[in-house]
């Protein structure tokens, strides 16, 4: 007899080996999935933390006119720039103890990234973003753009909404009523309040939008 295995031993061996390999495969796949999910969630959390945090900090001490730095709050649907009054630390292009500094957040649909600019330094934030939308609440209603240099003073508030790029592959247009993944309404310190007469119109617009969706 040769030094081989009997059929039974061979079958048992193969069975155990394949079960083992299957377990390894399952484990590895799960691990890969979890890792991807963890990485995506951490990136998204860090992204929003920096964007919302920068806007909140800027709104706390924003100015109406930044003199040489430009208008206080300027923005459109995909970007907003806020000049605020703080203490310069000698970095980001601000001299130590200087007062005014600019914070700008903008979304580039081409590269699908949000960039955060503080003074001179520019950070591209790593999380892939499908869309970022900024809306401004003026005293008489919502607007898609704002400029404090046009004499209206501060906006009542700024709403920033972010939709993340979660599914792989190319995305078609975002449906108009899609709920944002993260969204927040920021209030500028000392800003005016909404004109009560305009509230009825704002409510009506919101109702109409909701009706359209149904």
């Amino acid at each position, binding site marked *: 007899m040769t030094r081989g295995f009997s059929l039974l031993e061979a079958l048992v061996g193969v069975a*155990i080996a394949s079960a083992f390999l299957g377990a390894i495969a399952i484990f590895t796949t799960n691990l890969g999935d979890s890792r991807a999910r963890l990485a995506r969630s951490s990136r998204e959390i860090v992204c929003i933390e920096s964007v919302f945090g920068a806007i909140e900090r800027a709104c706390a001490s924003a100015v109406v006119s930044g003199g040489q730095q430009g208008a206080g709050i300027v923005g459109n649907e995909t970007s907003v720039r806020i000049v605020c009054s703080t203490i310069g630390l000698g970095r980001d292009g601000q001299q130590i103890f200087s007062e005014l500094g600019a914070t700008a957040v903008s979304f580039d649909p081409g590269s699908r990234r949000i960039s955060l600019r503080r003074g001179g330094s520019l950070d591209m934030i790593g999380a892939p973003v499908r869309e970022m939308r900024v809306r401004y609440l003026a005293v008489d209603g919502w607007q898609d753009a704002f400029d404090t240099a046009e004499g209206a003073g501060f906006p009542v*508030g700024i709403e920033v909404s972010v939709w993340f790029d979660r599914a792989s592959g190319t995305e078609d247009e975002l449906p108009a009523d899609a709920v944002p993944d993260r969204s927040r*309404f920021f209030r500028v310190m000392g800003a005016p309040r909404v004109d009560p007469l305009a509230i009825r119109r704002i409510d009506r617009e919101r109702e109409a939008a909701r009706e359209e969706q149904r």
Partner: protein
Amino acid sequence: MNDRRDGRKSQTGARSRRRGGILLELLLAIALFAAAASFTTSAMRSAVDGIRRTELRARAFDLAATRLAELDAGLIAASDLGEDRPRADGLSVRVEILPGAGVGLSRARATVRDFSDAVEGAEPTIVAVHERVVEQREGVRESRR
């Protein structure tokens, strides 16, 4: 004839020792792998849990801060407050006004609850509480002071 019998016996012995070795090795490998897999899986699961909770808390805070900012901005009036209907992601916010902070100001507290995985009849968990001083609009449609 005796030699042949002895050889076979020694061969059988060697083969069984080697088969036992392979089996032991395989069992050891399986045991190690099982231990490592369970350890890694539990670590990943707790990390995923932590991240999920952090994200939930962050979204809940967004909701609470937004609601208080809307109140301060005059978009919603005190009389319109109450428990909101749960949103698509299961979060719902309730704002209550606390007694007087200043002459024209009040302290408002927003409490966000998570309705998504609440068991029937059980209280939904509180995910975030946020409190700010807000300027309040008297009544529903009065003009600004």
